[in-house]
């Protein structure tokens, strides 16, 4: 028969006060990837969360040190794969800034439209996955239906659905697909007619609201101190939209609102993202009919050499502020490159916002932080 004490010893490999230590991940349905959280529980209540990273660490920063300024852009698609286009844009902007490359207006417009489409696609996926974390499976499929239209547009124009690599320093790799405008407009109509579905199924649902309201509260001071950016910080009332603060490309020419909420809980983060999708639609609507004619790529030298010095650019990805810091020694490859990924900083706030709540709340908090693991590990 069995040995009673042996069983007891094993299920209680824990500290004082009957704490239970469980390993959430690296294979866990709610961590969306290979995030490993060591969660210390007291009954159902979380006492401490300790993230263990690195399961998908590819040392992209080291890799980039041996790639030229044309080549390193494609690697950044593999970090935050949901906003890969915006990552690419950040890197291209850095090279353009460092070498003072003139980018044609047409390329700028298209870059912004694609960035906003990427943002919507990312938020759509997040919405579905977040609802699934909370136990509602169906919104996932509805969200993916709309996302599919965006990935189709991306496929037509960029040639890939996720890791587009459509941007080169100085502009775009090739011109947009002839059907681009038509398809984007079709998407906008479809999106606008389906947005009410998310409201019925998710936003107004009493169970969803009770699961997210007042859960995982992050105050504005803490959000700044933890370096949170993007929807996470904006839900706490911190104005941090790079598109507004430090406009790049044509963001200074378009009208849109920075969505700010003050509650700082999971529901506020949810609302910020949903409203941001509408703002993105607004930006696209303003630009889609006004893409100027002209070149899609500016004149660049064949071999790009960044002057000696340090360069930093930031762009607003779907998750927040993505910064690229390059130390150049004047050669064709960067001496040191550092990616300030939004997910990394957002993750560091997880212990703060989820400690003291229930396991179910951890899913809501983690879901609304919108963690993309390759972005965190890099």
């Amino acid at each position, binding site marked *: 028969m069995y040995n009673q004490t042996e069983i007891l010893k094993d299920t209680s490999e824990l500290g004082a006060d009957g704490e239970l230590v469980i390993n959430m991940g690296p294979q866990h349905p709610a961590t969306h990837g290979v995030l490993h959280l060591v969660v210390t529980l007291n009954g159902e209540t979380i006492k401490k969360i300790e993230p263990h990273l690195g399961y998908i660490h590819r040392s992209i920063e080291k890799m980039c040190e041996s790639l030229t300024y044309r080549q390193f852009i494609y690697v950044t698609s593999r970090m935050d794969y949901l906003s890969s286009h915006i990552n690419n844009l950040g890197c291209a902007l850095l090279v353009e800034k460092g070498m003072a490359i003139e980018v044609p207006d047409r390329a700028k417009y298209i870059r912004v439209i694609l960035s906003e489409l990427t943002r919507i696609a990312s938020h759509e996926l997040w919405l579905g996955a977040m609802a699934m974390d909370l136990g509602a499976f169906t919104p996932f499929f509805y969200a993916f239906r709309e996302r599919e239209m965006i990935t189709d547009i991306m496929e037509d124009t960029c040639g890939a659905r996720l890791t587009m690599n459509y941007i080169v320093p100085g502009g775009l790799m090739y011109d947009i697909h002839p059907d681009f405008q038509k398809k984007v407009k079709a998407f906008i109509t479809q999106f606008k007619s389906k947005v009410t579905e998310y409201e019925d199924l998710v936003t107004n649902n009493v169970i969803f609201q009770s699961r997210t309201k007042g859960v995982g509260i992050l105050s504005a001071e803490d959000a700044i101190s933890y370096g949170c950016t993007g929807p996470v910080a904006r839900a706490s009332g911190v104005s941090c939209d790079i598109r507004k603060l430090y406009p790049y490309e044509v963001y200074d020419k378009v009208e849109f609102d920075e969505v700010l909420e003050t509650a700082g809980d999971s529901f506020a983060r949810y609302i910020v993202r949903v409203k941001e999708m509408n703002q993105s639609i607004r930006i696209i609507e303003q630009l889609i009919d006004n893409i100027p004619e002209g070149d899609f790529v500016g004149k660049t030298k064949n071999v790009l050499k960044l002057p000696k*010095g340090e360069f*930093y650019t930031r762009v607003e990805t779907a998750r927040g502020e993505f910064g690229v810091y390059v130390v150049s020694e004047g050669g064709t490859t960067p001496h040191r490159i550092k990616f300030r990924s939004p997910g*990394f900083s957002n993750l560091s706030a997880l212990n703060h916002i989820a400690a003291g709540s229930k396991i179910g709340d951890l899913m809501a908090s983690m879901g609304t932080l919108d963690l993309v693991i390759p972005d965190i*590990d890099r």
Partner: protein
Amino acid sequence: MTNEEIKEYISSLAPAATFDETGEWLNILVEPTALKPLMADLRTGKMQMNYLFCLTCVDFKTHLTMVYHLSATTHRQSIVIKANLNRDTPVIETVCDIWRTAEFLEREVFEMFGVNFTNHPDLRKLILEEENPKGFDEKKGYWPLRKDFEDPINMIKL
């Protein structure tokens, strides 16, 4: 605040600081020992630099340089603080009690560059395995992002 005013203000706090205005932002190079008090004052004093948006380290082969990008959500001015460290025994005081985000970023720098942060509450490896790979030269240290790092198995030279 103009750059001149910032320079003046920082010079009053850290007299040994040198300035560099060639880049986008004002770069301030300070002694590692003078870093912590300066940072504390930048956060709480007149500058109110409450947002540390990038913390990293650069290996210049002769020395390591800690780079802190600071900004403020009130007046949106960014400055860069740097501190040169000895490559053999890099030690600097932590800033994670000033900005909470520094805790993870410093852990990352610790495992990638081997910089020791004194007074850090939990200085462990964050991304890599706890144990260094077998057969690795322990004397040189296992700091992957340093320039002289060699990994015969996983690094492919093209």
